[in-house]
């Protein structure tokens, strides 16, 4: 029986380690975990890890990586050492998240109606009107209950004891919540003893919260028990597992575009008993593809006439059409201003300082400091098309410089943050790896709901800051302790 080598954050002293803190020793939240790690032999940890992998494969929790024909279905690496937050930390975070999502919804309402924030000169008009994800079809369009983003995933990073930053707002079709739920299931199955020692707040009520949220935003004209459906692009989509997982847990139909049709501005699904009306559509399909009559005419994923049914007020689409404008990484940089403008409050969560390359001075700074910065596409996601300056060689930097000059408004840049690290089981034992956190925020007609926790993504390669699953990232269970 061999015990794992003692955990040390020595390899990367610049980053805040969530178990050991700045002084070494152990932070209170991790006290029981540290003891357990010390007492548990490495081979037991390895064995449990392989068991977890077996369960993932069996259940079929896979994802697809675009552009890789061979590995069409891959398993996401699951790390068995949970990431732990205290109740107090969570309270702060969840207040900040609610505030942020509330402001984003106010912004979307405004930008598609009165446009006060543009007229006040706070957000530049060009950034909105010239933006391809701004949907003129939604101008002055009344939508049920004025809620645009019902489901948001806000990416947070931590750099110190009390320092959390918002990295991105995902307001289109954020994914990952099935991992949050499955990670917990697997941890409870593999490590029941840990849940006895630590008082971990549950996350499984997410499913009920999501259903309650979706039902609450049904059109006024819908029956008392509205028919909710989840719309997927199909089995080849990278998040298909999640779509079917959610449909199963919610007990609603998982539909594809071809299962739906529109007649008399009402959306129906084709069933073995004939057409059945759909009142709320939680769509996991991008705007571009939902209705070939209005958006991309070549889309075979969508439903012809869906937009006109939406515009007639006969269906709720979640998230609303046009929310991509709040997902834009240049618009992101104005969210603190939105919070002040719409809510009259100081932001509880900070943004990462962001250079908008569309502005000449910002671009100049970015070009001059490229090796220190992280550069992202304004509409990018999944870590695709991103540059990490400190990790890039000269050729990559030069290539990116040319890209930036060619189309500056397509990019933003941020300083490279020293993301916090968490103990992670790797081949050589337990070692610190960088993590981020994506909590999921649900906005219904009645209230905002957030389950304590979220999806922790971990960069498994030593020193790497890229946590995306498509780029070799893994996931962890995220614990929020009671108290």
């Amino acid at each position, binding site marked *: 029986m061999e015990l794992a080598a003692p955990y040390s954050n020595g390899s990367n002293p610049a980053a805040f380690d969530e178990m050991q803190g700045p002084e070494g020793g152990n932070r209170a939240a991790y006290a029981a975990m540290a003891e357990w790690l010390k007492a548990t032999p490495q081979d037991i940890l390895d064995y449990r890890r392989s068991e977890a992998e077996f369960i993932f*494969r*069996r259940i*079929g929790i896979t994802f697809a990586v675009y552009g890789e024909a061979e590995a069409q279905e891959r398993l996401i690496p699951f790390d068995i050492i949970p990431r732990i937050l205290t109740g107090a930390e969570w309270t702060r975070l969840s207040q900040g998240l609610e505030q942020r999502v509330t402001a984003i919804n106010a912004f979307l309402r405004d930008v598609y109606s009165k446009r006060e924030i543009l007229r006040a000169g706070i957000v530049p008009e060009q950034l909105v009107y010239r933006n391809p994800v701004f949907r003129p079809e939604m101008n002055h369009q009344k939508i049920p209950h004025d809620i645009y983003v019902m489901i948001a995933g806000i990416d947070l990073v931590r750099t110190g004891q009390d320092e959390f930053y918002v990295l991105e707002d995902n307001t289109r079709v954020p994914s990952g919540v099935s991992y949050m739920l499955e990670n917990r299931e697997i941890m409870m199955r593999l490590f029941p003893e840990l849940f006895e020692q630590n008082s971990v707040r549950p996350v499984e009520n997410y499913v009920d919260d999501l259903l309650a949220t979706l039902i609450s935003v049904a059109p006024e004209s819908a029956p008392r028990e509205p028919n909710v459906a989840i719309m997927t692009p*199909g*089995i080849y989509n990278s998040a*298909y597992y999640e779509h*079917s*997982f959610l*449909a*199963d847990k919610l007990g609603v*139909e*998982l*539909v*594809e575009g*071809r*299962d739906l049709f529109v007649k008399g501005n009402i959306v129906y*699904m*084709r*069933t*073995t*008993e004939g057409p059945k009306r759909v009142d709320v559509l939680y769509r996991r399909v991008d705007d571009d593809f939902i209705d070939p009559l209005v958006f991309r005419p070549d889309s075979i994923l969508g439903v012809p006439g869906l937009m006109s049914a939406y515009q007639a007020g006969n269906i709720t689409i979640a998230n609303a059409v046009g929310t991509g404008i709040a997902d834009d990484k240049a618009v992101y940089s104005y969210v603190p201003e939105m919070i002040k403008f719409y809510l009259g409050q100081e932001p509880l969560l900070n943004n990462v300082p962001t250079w908008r390359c569309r502005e000449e001075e910002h671009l100049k700074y970015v070009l001059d400091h490229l090796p220190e910065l992280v550069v992202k596409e304004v509409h990018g996601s999944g870590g695709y098309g991103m540059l990490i300056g400190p990790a890039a060689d000269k050729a990559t930097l030069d290539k990116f410089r040319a890209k930036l000059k060619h189309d500056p408004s397509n990019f933003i840049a941020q300083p490279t943050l020293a993301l916090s690290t968490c103990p992670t089981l790797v081949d050589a034992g337990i070692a610190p790896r960088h993590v981020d956190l994506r909590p999921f925020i649900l906005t219904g007609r009645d209230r905002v709901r957030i389950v304590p926790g979220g999806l922790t993504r971990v960069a498994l390669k030593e020193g790497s800051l890229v946590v995306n699953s498509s780029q070799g990232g893994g996931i962890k269970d995220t614990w929020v302790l009671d108290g």
Partner: protein
Amino acid sequence: MLSRTADNLFWLARFMERADCVARIIDAAQRLATMPRGTGPGTNEWESAVATAGCVEAFKAKYDGANIRSVTEFLAFSPDNPASIRNCVEIARTNARAVRTALTGEMWDAINSAWYEVRTFDPDKTHGEELARFLSLVKESALRFDGAAFRTMLRNDAYWFSRLGILIERADATARILDVKYHVLLPEQAQVGGPLDYFQWVSILRSVSARASYHWVYRDSVKPWLIADLLILNRQMPRSLASCYENLSRYLDDLAQFYGRQGNSQRLARAMLTKLENASMEEIFQSGLHEFIGQFIAENSKLGGAIAEQYLV
């Protein structure tokens, strides 16, 4: 339920059943091929295996001759054969992924594990004992899927659609086996029945796993007209045409009751069941076994079309 979900359930069950049938065909052919051949024009067991699986043209387009290598590769693994075992399992799993929510965990598990395991076999190395291992894996997977469905599914439309898929496929497979071998089953051939014919008959029973059943039912040595009776008219035999239609008709009636509406598929199934119930082997032999089976295959596929039209689109 969504029409697409019903369609997926119907077809995934069909393809699991088809994988099982093809595995049995290979198994039977392999046994027969080990028998010493008498004089005279030897039948090529591997050609008849391809014919039984219903893919002669696709096979001829790809290979020059039918032998153990070419046929097992084609029937078990070839991506060019839409009905190869590997393709069947692949399609079944693709369909299963698309309707995860309509399957029980156990059913998904059966299909998903079958898919993972089938993929571990290298077509170039799967011979002899390894081939036997592969074939029993496929048969066991189909059993597991069937058993999982039987034990864990709610008895509602999802269950009935998956049963319909299995039964239409099974009736088709039984009819095709009979069609390819009908000449060795004709009564007048009995006199010429040497040892080779005997093994042909046994191989038919084997390919529908009915060897033991035959003896229980008839308490007689293997006789070709009794084999035909067992596989066509005997309602105790789960693979017989009569049994398939007894169940098809029953599940279609369950569906009609559930949805409160009868349709063309109920009528077609009942008509075929009545025909089988009133038939006798003498009449069938008199009017032509081959013709009878040919007509059955056509009508069975018409029923498949009617089910699709009524529920699946």
